[in-house]
């Protein structure tokens, strides 16, 4: 940390944090409002997850500094995310496959 975090860059960071905070607040309101929209369930799910993912990326990218993180950590996380999706979707697919017989 010592090298890349000069005083100025930290000050710059702080500005970014405040902006991200604003964005998160706005997005939260949007999520709630969107849930009152009259859309089909699948559209609602899609919309809600998109917004949540944007928020999550903001937190991970800026608060957790992932956008400037070292490649080892990024690759470990990519691996994890891959298995995360495997774990979520393979049982689901196999559930629907079960129902077919």
């Amino acid at each position, binding site marked *: 940390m010592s090298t890349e975090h000069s005083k100025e860059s930290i000050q710059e960071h702080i500005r970014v944090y405040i902006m991200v905070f604003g964005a998160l607040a706005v997005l939260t309101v949007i999520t709630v409002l969107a849930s009152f929209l009259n859309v089909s369930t699948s559209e609602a799910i899609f919309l809600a997850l998109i917004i949540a993912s944007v928020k999550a990326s903001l937190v991970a990218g800026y608060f957790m500094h992932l956008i400037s993180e070292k490649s080892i950590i990024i690759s470990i996380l990519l691996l994890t995310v891959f298995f995360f999706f495997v774990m979520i979707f393979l049982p689901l697919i*196999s559930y629907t496959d079960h129902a077919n017989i």
Partner: protein
Amino acid sequence: MSSNSHSNDHHDENFIQKYIFSVDHKVIGIQYGITSLLFLLFGFSLMAIMRWQLAYPDTVIPIVGFLFGESGTLASEQYNSLGAMHGTIMIFLGIVPLAVGAFGNYLVPLQIGAVDMAFPKLNAASYWSYFVGGVIMISSFFMPEGAARSGWTSYPPLSIFENGQTIWLISMIFLITSSLLGSMNIIVTIVQLRVPGLTWMRLPLFVWAQFVTSFLLVLAFPPLEAAAVLQLMDRVAGTSFFLPSGLVMSGEIVDVAGSGSPLLWQHLFWFLAHPEVYVLILPALGIVGEILANNTRKPIWGFKSIIYSMVFLGFCSFIVWAHHMFLTGMGQAMSAFFQTTTMIISIPSVIILTSYFLSLWGGSIRFNTPMLFALAFLPMFGIGGLTGLPLGLAASDIYLHDTYYVIGHFHYVVAPGTIFALFAGIYYWFPKITGKKMNEMLGKLHFWPSLIFMNGIFMPMFIQGLAGVSRRLADGGVSYAHASGVLHLNEFMTTSAFLLGIAQIPFIINIIMSLFSGEKAGRNPWNATTVEWAAPSPPLPHVNFDSDIVVHHSSYEYSNPDAKKDFILQTEK
């Protein structure tokens, strides 16, 4: 290392700090080792009682019969308890802690030239969490409900209704936490604490194996933890995650909200439990690699492809799990997917084994005890692995699923496979750990009978399995007509199992005797090449090495034609 480190502030530790609540990876490794060997012995004893019942159903159990009630015989629910606990203890309290906790802890820092694990306190926490989990697991035998009896797989709905399961779940949460802490530590240690010059491709196979293993543990265990929490909720909070609507238990409608799914548990369980079986085998493969290189006096053939295979194996192990679930009514697409991935995953295993075989060619093979165990590992793992193939093919699994064929398959990989590799490791590194060599004669007296009796137990299981005898039968199949042709084998298997137990006596004697009066071993009794042999035997408390370590060579420089000796220590200039 760093200039302002307080190097000598470890001298005034008292006994408790030094041996009980130590944060030194070597002490923790030994604690893990002793505890897990005792659990191994305990798991063996449970199995001995089961095997007695299988060979002589409903006769009085010799010696320990009084533990099982007035009749002195084993009731079927007791048999189910012993089975579930044998599986659980062997896997989660025996082999994994021994292979990862003990060997990983002790050797990884040494082999990469580090002073300790990256997080010593976390390391101690990991051991104590394991210890508490183990005590809870054992305590379930003394609870009014008794120990868990739904198999180590704990399939709901049975596990929701059967006695003893709550304690099992709580204990598992401790054990999972322990493994998570331990494996995070190992990953960070390997990434961060390698000494200068020790590049990834110079790491010994054992370290690679631990690295991949740790990733499996970190990423596969949490889903089981989640599943355990859900099952605990089902048991104590009356939820119905795993209970569908409309259950009728012994004539009464089960009063829960319903609409849960028993298959959800199976998915989450096997998402862990398949990678878990590679957790059982990878450290063993690593140990065998070390010993083969050392005792053939030549580099491991196909070193790089072995490493790639291990990584690939680890990766693929996450996408094959449902081969344990073929008969749950799986459709065409999923069965095709999972049997294909299962066939794919067998290829890297074949590559690793083939490379080991080819490493023998051109060697100058020494047959000492560690080498004998390591060599025996190869065909034994071969049998186990090969019999995995018909199980992995959905078509043949229809017939073989949940028969003794499966029991035979996996015992060949874990018992004469992994256990032999771990024995080999103990014989091989004992001089490093204690400074004393183990007795060769007793070692061979341990090896040969073990090899024979292991096969005596597990080979007939394939025959029983082909005859269609199911596993987890409290009477060994007496009730079923199709078992009648192969029942006579039970007695033979049981006798072999008891003789196998007796064959361990030389081993225990050997350990104790060598500890006190073994031949002194120097730093490098086997003329080996990896970094741990540059440390004194035993390595210094807390710092391991007595000189600065820099690595100049790849890990198995044996019989290099340019060198004067037949081995080049990695740390030599």
